[in-house]
């Protein structure tokens, strides 16, 4: 199901001379003694589908609300399209927001909800009607124009909210948990629609979400937030394959972590001594490391293979006993206990239906992986 999105135009964040559409400079937001957002700097570029990902209370919503103008930073500045908007009220900002609760006006019908922003601009009535019709067809709810919000299903309300927030051609669309209120099936379907609409309109989307799968599927880049700070900003694939911190590694997907120290480094091949493993661990890492330095290796469960024999000479090997098996349909997750007591998990696709389980409980196995499949965490 996870389709990692290919960003079509060349990656704009790689071009430093281009003015980003959102520039957040050293922004801090304090509520009393609590730092909701702690000295964040971030650039978001035109046309991106940018996600702020994190667990609840990490400051992602506060950051979004500061972009919308509902909160003022305690310190720092926010620029939108080159203009300093730090102290500009929400009704004068060139951004619009889609709320988590959708916030549809209950006393207005769908068409009036969508037209509300256009009315504030003073757009003529006939022009307004054309624009509303255009938006209704964009989100495919033409037949619902005269309904009141309480006569709509959750998915339909979500579409109205989206149409309303797009009506004024915002430079940036802010979306607060846009799919949070939908059930799982509808959510997956809507993810792709949201991406399609974003690509068609070319508007920069900034999305707040706590759902890593959602962020992975839709985003051009993800900013992973933790306790008011940004842990890592990267495209989904990089964030998954090369997490830069322990938190990032364990937040996205599952991961096995091995603590050890560097033994030697030849070019980009690093050898790491880890007490829990039965051999030296070899990993590819291009940044220079000092021998003796403490590092953590992050190994994704799906990168692990089951080896036939233990080879005294080869690196990257573990021996242990399978203690638990979780059958998930497409894959099975195996929990292996090493002699030292450490748990390691790996996954195997269930290639054949009803085939006899090749691996079973209490079986002794040797696990291995390639040097390219492991990440090095230095913090």
């Amino acid at each position: 199901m996870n389709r990692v999105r290919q960003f079509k135009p060349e990656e704009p964040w790689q071009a430093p001379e281009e003015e980003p559409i959102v520039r957040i400079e050293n922004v801090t937001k304090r509520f009393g003694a609590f730092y909701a957002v702690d000295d964040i700097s971030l650039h978001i570029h035109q046309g991106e589908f940018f996600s702020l990902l994190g667990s609840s209370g990490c400051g992602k919503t506060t950051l979004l609300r500061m972009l919308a103008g509902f909160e003022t930073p305690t310190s720092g500045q926010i620029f939108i399209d080159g203009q300093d908007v730090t102290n500009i009220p929400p009704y004068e900002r060139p951004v619009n927001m889609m709320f988590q609760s959708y916030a549809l006006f209950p006393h207005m019908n769908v068409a009036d909800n969508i037209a509300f922003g256009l009315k504030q601009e003073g757009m003529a009535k006939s022009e307004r009607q054309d624009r509303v019709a255009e938006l209704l067809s964009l989100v495919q709810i033409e037949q619902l124009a005269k309904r009141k919000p309480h006569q709509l299903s959750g998915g339909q309300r979500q579409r109205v909210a989206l149409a309303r927030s797009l009506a004024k051609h915002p430079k940036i669309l802010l979306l607060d948990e846009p799919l949070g209120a939908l059930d799982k099936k509808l959510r997956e379907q809507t993810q792709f629609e949201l991406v399609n609409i974003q690509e068609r309109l070319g508007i920069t989307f900034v999305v707040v979400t706590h759902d890593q799968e959602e962020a992975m599927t839709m985003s051009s880049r993800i900013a992973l937030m933790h306790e008011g700070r940004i842990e890592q900003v990267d495209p989904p694939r990089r964030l998954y394959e090369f997490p830069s911190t322990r938190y990032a590694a364990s937040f996205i997907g599952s991961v096995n972590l091995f603590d050890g120290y560097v033994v030697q480094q030849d070019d980009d091949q690093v050898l790491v001594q880890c007490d829990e493993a039965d051999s030296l661990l070899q990993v590819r890492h291009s940044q220079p490391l000092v021998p003796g330095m403490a590092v953590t290796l992050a190994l994704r469960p799906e990168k692990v293979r089951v080896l036939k024999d233990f080879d005294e000479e080869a690196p990257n090997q573990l021996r242990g006993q399978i203690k638990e098996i979780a059958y998930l349909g497409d894959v099975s997750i195996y929990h292996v206990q090493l002699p030292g007591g450490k748990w390691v998990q790996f996954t195997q696709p269930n290639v054949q239906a009803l085939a006899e389980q090749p691996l079973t409980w209490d079986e002794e196995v040797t696990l291995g992986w390639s040097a390219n499949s492991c990440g090095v965490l230095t913090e």
Partner: protein
Amino acid sequence: MKRRMPLLISILLFGYAFLYIPIASLIVYSFNESRLVTVWSGFSTKWYGELLQNDQLLGAAWLSVQIAALTASLSVVLGTLAALALVRFRRFRGRGSLEVMVTAPLVMPEVIIGLSLLLLFVAMETVIGWPAGRGMNTIVIAHTTFAMAYVAVVVQSRLAHMDLSLEEAALDLGARPLKVFFTITLPIIAPALVAGWLLAFTLSLDDLVVASFVSGPGATTLPMVVYSSVRLGVSPEINALATIIVGLVSVAVLIAGFILWRQEKRNSMDSN
């Protein structure tokens, strides 16, 4: 379970009887032929006819209605402002004392409200010359002081349940704060305002104690007339009048209740 049913039903009936038999007997005797209130001598609507001839009663009724309407309108404005301040502006100087003062009239004995307002009006008249004498104005002010407390409570609960992001969405779409209040907040809390208005109207209409403290010559409200005439003996005319008032108040309360109930239902549908 089955065996308990007769007991439950009889308790229910007793409760209803306790509440409504006095009112029912009043209504029944308003259709009595006889001048003696307690002796039934046949059905008649003549007391309703005589009521229409009684200028003193009709004048008092008209005055009461005017006072009630003014009181209700003023209370809605002030009560809504107080509720907005309490719900929307979480932190400000004097918030605690405002909260206490807004709700104090709910528990304050009417006699004390009446007396304190009377003393205030007298003092104000000697110091700043206003209000000159007591009458309809002072009754409206006095009624507003306690009726707005009820309005504030009703509106406050409605505002507290209103999704704040509705106002934020309107701001986000380019509406200025004042425009947001009139196009979004006000229509959404309108049912509470209507209910509050009706509540304030009935409170003012049947107040006797506060009104008798702060009224002056020439400003006699309906409850005051009823009270003074009953002291000279109950006339069937009063029964007829009371029946009409009971009817009006019931209708007002039913309408207010219906509006709140419909709103509640819509809210629960919205949150689904």
